[in-house]
């Protein structure tokens, strides 16, 4: 069995995987980081979004072995010292989540957006979220939350 090593949320990890093992499987099954979810099999829903070397990716469409030697960040690593990341805080403040299933991917995607575009307008936020499907919120409050997070992160 091939061996894969990477840094996940700042911690060096190693594991034996198959060639076909997806990054999301490695995270959920080997590392028991179940905050990253699987909501589809065609790379569209975005429930599985994590960061690899600082870029948001769909961990269901990446082999664990492709992530060998990378830095991976998941939703579990976002809050620091018990305090929520501003994007997490804004989702809570603006009711940007209901059932919570799409939320980890949605938040990780939003964090990447604000890194690249710290001041997005509503249209840019909505376009960026093309790869994240939410069935609960109608996106209204997610958009509001991201706008608010952007403002707070600047302040």
């Amino acid at each position: 069995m091939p061996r894969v090593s990477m840094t996940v949320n700042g911690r060096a990890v190693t594991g034996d995987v198959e060639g076909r093992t997806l990054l999301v499987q490695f995270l959920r099954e080997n590392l028991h980081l179940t905050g990253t979810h699987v909501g589809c099999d065609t790379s569209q829903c975005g429930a599985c979004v994590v960061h690899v070397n600082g870029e948001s990716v769909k961990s269901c469409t990446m082999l664990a072995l492709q992530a060998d030697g990378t830095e991976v960040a998941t939703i579990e690593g976002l809050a620091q010292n018990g305090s929520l990341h501003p994007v997490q805080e804004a989702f809570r403040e603006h009711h940007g989540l209901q059932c919570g299933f799409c939320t980890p991917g949605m938040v990780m995607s939003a964090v990447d957006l604000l890194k690249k575009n710290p001041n997005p307008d509503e249209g840019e936020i909505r376009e960026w979220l093309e790869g994240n499907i939410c069935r609960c919120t109608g996106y209204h409050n997610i958009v509001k939350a991201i706008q608010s997070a952007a403002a707070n992160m600047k302040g």
Partner: protein
Amino acid sequence: MYDFTHHRPASVDAAVAALTGADDGKIMAGGMTLIPTLKQRLASPSDVVDLGAIAALKGIKEEGGAIVIGAMTTHAAVAANATVKAKIPALAHLADGIGDPQVRNRGTIGGSIANNDPAADYPAGLVGLGATVVTNKRQIPADDFFTGMFETALADDELVTAVSFPVPEKAAYAKFANPASRYAIVGVMVSKGPAGVRVAVTGAAPCVFRLAEAESALGGGFSADAVGKVKVSSDGLNSDMHASAEYRANLVSVMLKRAVAAAG
């Protein structure tokens, strides 16, 4: 997904060796099409040759007046690249509209064109800009590269290493996305430059094609008015539950006008 042996060569030669040494090897670039295909068990390669570790295939440079993009350069990298944005903004715009942000962070130009999905954006980009595909063996003009639905001129042991784009005088890409998959139902790239006036259409037919009537109309003057009367026939266009051939023909003419207007 069936299991396979994963290879991660560090050079193109090693990749070719791994590929030719396998019973049924597949090249994986970004994996945006291959991994979903494997998940659905629509393919069962014995070996997957992952090009992700070949540094030589990544990057964008200006070379002899052309923009040369390494095969493993991601869509996001193309969209964000200052040189591309300055010299061929239409190409940056095209790359910025592929899939979604996460797909753009993994998907690559080489993988996209080697797969030649009839609804992919890059084939219109290459043909519409008169690009040249560079492989480990030769250089192939884009016009000759895309040979049919999911078919290219690549030989079994041939890899795309880069794509070279001449810098156009003006160019623009207009896309009408499938609301579900976000692939192109129709995408039109227009350009005027060293390769002449070019109009390439993706999504509408089984393979990217050039729209001769539009090219000749624009040859007489590159303006939205010039293409206003171009009739697009629905013959040979795709028809499926997302769009009939007739509707696609309409979208080709609308996207053509929008692209020409955007090119200025």
